[in-house]
């Protein structure tokens, strides 16, 4: 590879975003736009006995008010067959925040005023706001037409591992909880729908414009070519903007009805109950191991709280958790199974890592439990179990789940060169003995996760057309280039990294390469940005398209130089016969020549524009080793992360500056899950965390500086060798932090602390443990 791969180039997207000239959906203006406002359920489970919209309909500026009954024939959103969610509540509400009615008015303030005037009468039904409540013997099914709230059950292993567990020298049962979190992208959901006779255009805060176009087309019975979905600048997604929300479909339907563009801007409070939540899993684990801490058998039973309406992606996540339950360890037998339970809560979908952080948290906590049980060092227990580089590629016992090239022990070794573990342990012990000092704890996390989602057979199961990605690279006659990609970035910096890939291949200055994305009318078929697939899958498609352009350009250049193709080389945008100082032609001259058919070699079509699709041969598996050092205030129980060191192996790094940013962002969300965040409900299904006052998104003072390092083991699963890294931090960090918190308290007999490790929880442990 040339010099642009691996270069810390500053981003092409930044000047617009930094000067207030970004284009987010809410910044777009279409003449005559009307505003939507929702009437949402204040109760978690109830029959709707009456809705009075009369006063609202007569309010100033109101163009219409609709309930489910006013929209006969409106199909539900697509989901698991038999569990499709209606766009507006159809006679019953099943979680706080579910939409009951919608107002469209000429102005956002007037729409909100009118929504206040809608009167809804509810007849309470029993609220089942937890898995325990929803699976109780007398629990009535929440969804119509179903027998039970357990809506999906699957056993993913042929064995229950009982024989191996029974035969193991040691056996331990552990219960772990991965609490419900909210993605909280700083831009909430926004949608601007414009239905015209010629078709439907929707501007959307989405990670998957092509997928959304397909959903709109299917829903309205339109041809896909009549629907245009545009995702302009999108203010973060973290997986939660990959779902298709009923609000999108209603905005389009109501634009059709009022015959003007309709805009929906979610408030943050609405966002906290409308946007899918993540995680929400409980794990019942049994592990068998020997005296050295060697893991001999693992059984994990996963229970997912999938919320009131199963989300298409959401219900697939426990499968990924199951696949990854062995982590980066050689475990001879794994038995994984799961069940998904419907409750009177917000639906659960993807959130950064989506199914893999849950697995990684589980197995990393298990390893620390094993170490504690044996009185061994957690690092040593990891070492005896880590899969070695010479065992790669490593086929797990789950079909098709094959770990690619990596060096798990190497990551741990590199980590330990940056962390003076002996010294930290000495300090931990010294601080323990000094009542005036905070307690110190050290936690490790050696992890592997999935990146580069596809391939198609896997991705189809999440409702996508495929697991490939597409790119088109076109040279213009002055030798500048335009890339079109099917990925849809929302902070990842594809304009920069993909330009680097093309610059590297063709020797064009990256300032002369632009990128178009997120518009189904201009971009060829694509899939979207999620599952750490931007660089490994999208980037590989760009690489292939650029390679095709290069090959064709070489052929034309050879013709112009009257040389043999195999003798011609391209350096810094100039073609010449290799090893000579003779005549040259520039890329721009070749691009211009490509549009003069009569001057082209026999059989060469005009133009320098190529499209490529990249179907990954399999998932890639980013891995790494992280260490977290915490201090705990003995008076308040407050946990401070005082040091966080990360070694990541994400394969080829295209832009180290952006890679660091991705890792930092993931770490922040992982640390936040460990220490601060939890979506919770009271018994009546009322969210306790319905806005940013009650849900703790950490600020700058709540998070530490991070130290990041790379070990580079390129994957052979794609031509770039990149594995993806967007989700690594969020996958690795929670258990590094929790392991450190438990370590700090271990002398008190503490073996586990549930996330989030809040001051109240830790203070409680400090005091009960002290007093006992």
């Amino acid at each position, binding site marked *: 590879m040339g010099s642009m791969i691996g270069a810390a180039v500053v981003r092409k997207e930044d000047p617009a975003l930094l000067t*207030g000239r970004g284009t987010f959906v809410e910044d777009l203006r279409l003449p005559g736009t009307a505003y939507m406002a929702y009437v949402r359920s204040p109760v978690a489970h109830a029959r709707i006995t009456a809705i009075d919209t009369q006063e609202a309909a007569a309010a100033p500026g109101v163009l219409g008010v609709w309930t489910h009954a006013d929209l006969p024939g409106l199909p539900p959103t697509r989901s698991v067959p038999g569990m499709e969610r209606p766009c507006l509540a159809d006679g019953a509400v099943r979680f706080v925040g579910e939409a009951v009615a919608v107002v469209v008015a000429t102005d956002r303030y007037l729409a909100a005023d009118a929504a206040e005037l809608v009167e809804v009468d509810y007849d309470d039904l029993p609220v089942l706001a937890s898995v325990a409540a929803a699976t109780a013997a007398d629990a009535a099914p929440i969804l119509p037409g179903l027998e039970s709230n357990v809506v999906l059950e699957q056993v993913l292993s042929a064995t229950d591992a009982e024989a191996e567990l029974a035969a193991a020298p040691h056996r331990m049962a552990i219960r772990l909880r991965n609490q419900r979190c909210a993605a909280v992208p700083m831009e909430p959901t926004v949608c601007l729908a414009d239905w015209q006779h010629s078709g439907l255009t929707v501007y959307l805060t989405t990670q998957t414009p092509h997928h959304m176009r397909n959903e709109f087309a299917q829903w309205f019975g339109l041809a896909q070519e009549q629907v245009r979905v545009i995702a302009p600048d999108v203010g973060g997604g973290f997986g939660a903007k990959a779902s298709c929300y009923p609000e999108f479909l209603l905005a389009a339907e109501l634009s059709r009805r009022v015959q003007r563009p309709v805009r929906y801007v979610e408030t943050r409070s609405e966002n906290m109950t409308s946007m899918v939540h993540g995680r929400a899993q409980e794990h019942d684990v049994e592990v068998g191991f020997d005296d050295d801490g060697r893991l001999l058998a693992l059984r994990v039973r996963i229970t997912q709280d999938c919320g009131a309406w199963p989300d298409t992606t959401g219900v697939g996540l426990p499968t990924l958790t199951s696949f990854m339950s062995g982590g980066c360890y050689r475990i001879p037998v794994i038995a994984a199974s799961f069940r998904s339970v419907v409750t009177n809560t917000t639906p659960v979908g993807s959130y950064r890592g989506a199914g893999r952080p849950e697995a990684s948290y589980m197995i990393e906590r298990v390893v620390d439990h094993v170490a504690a049980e044996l009185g061994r060092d957690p690092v040593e227990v990891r070492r005896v179990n880590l899969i070695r580089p010479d065992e790669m590629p490593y086929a797990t016992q789950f079909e098709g789940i094959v770990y690619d090239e990596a060096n798990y022990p190497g990551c741990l070794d590199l980590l330990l060169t940056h962390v003076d573990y002996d010294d930290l342990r000495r300090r931990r012990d010294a601080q323990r003995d000094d009542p005036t000092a905070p307690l110190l704890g050290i936690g490790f996390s050696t992890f592997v996760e999935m990146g580069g989602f596809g391939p198609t057979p896997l991705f189809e199961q999440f409702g996508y057309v495929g697991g490939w990605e597409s790119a088109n690279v076109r040279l213009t006659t002055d030798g500048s280039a335009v890339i079109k990609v099917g990925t849809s970035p929302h902070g990842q910096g594809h304009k920069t990294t993909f330009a680097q890939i093309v610059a590297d291949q063709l020797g064009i200055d990256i300032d002369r390469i632009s990128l178009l994305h997120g518009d189904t009318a201009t971009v060829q078929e694509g899939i979207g940005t999620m599952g750490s697939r931007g660089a490994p899958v999208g980037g590989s498609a760009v690489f292939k398209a650029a390679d095709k352009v290069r090959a064709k350009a070489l052929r034309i250049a050879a013709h112009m130089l009257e040389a043999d193709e195999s003798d011609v080389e391209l350096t810094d945008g100039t073609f010449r016969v290799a090893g000579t100082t003779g005549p040259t032609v520039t890329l721009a001259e070749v691009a211009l020549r490509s549009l003069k058919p009569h001057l082209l070699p026999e059989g060469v079509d005009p133009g320098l524009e190529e499209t490529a699709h990249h179907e990954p041969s399999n998932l890639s598996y980013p891995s790494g080793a992280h260490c977290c050092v915490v201090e705990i205030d003995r008076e308040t129980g407050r946990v401070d992360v005082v040091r966080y060191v990360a070694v990541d192996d994400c394969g080829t790094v295209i832009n180290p500056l952006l890679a660091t940013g991705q890792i930092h962002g993931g770490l922040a969300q992982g640390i936040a899950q460990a220490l601060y965040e939890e979506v919770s409900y009271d018994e009546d299904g009322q969210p306790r965390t319905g806005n940013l006052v009650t849900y703790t998104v950490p600020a700058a003072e709540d998070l530490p*500086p991070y130290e990041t390092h790379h070990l580079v083991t390129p994957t052979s699963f794609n031509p770039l060798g990149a594995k993806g890294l967007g989700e690594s931090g969020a996958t690795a960090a929670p258990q590094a932090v929790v392991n450190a918190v438990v370590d700090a308290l271990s002398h008190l007999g503490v073996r586990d602390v549930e996330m989030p490790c809040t001051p109240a929880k830790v203070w409680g442990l400090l005091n009960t443990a002290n007093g006992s």
Partner: protein
Amino acid sequence: MSHHKVRISVNGVPGEDEVESRRLLVHYLRETRGLTGTHVGCDTSNCGACTVLLDGMTVKSCTVLAVAADGSEVLTVEGLADDEAMSPVQEGFRACHGLQCGYCTPGMVMAATGLLLENPAPDEAEIRAGIEGNLCRCTGYQMIVDSVRWAAENGGAGTAATTHAERASS
């Protein structure tokens, strides 16, 4: 709904508009003045996406009514750069990769600018405290801290902000 006439100067450009008494300054800026760089990220004044300078002070424009800003001068993210160059804070964010999705960025840049007006040489703790009212979900903050430090070392709050603040205090 009662309406009022307000005179508000935004980025040095005077304006005279009829506004509803309940209209928030952020909506006035975005909708009446067409300056969509200032964002809205919450409804509880927690996120800081809407941060602007109002007569030299950092404020969350979702907590100020447009009528309350009558007679004031506002500086938004659109007013920081001149034709030639971005402000040191904007440059710092670019150089240090202090932004990803860019949604929190205008508010973050204004908060950082406000901080540097008050404290031209903040240390790490002061920077973290200075942007405490602004949430970013993408960066994990460290590169934002680096960006602000870069700005402090390369020109501080910048000409537009300094001029704005001087006018406010005179």
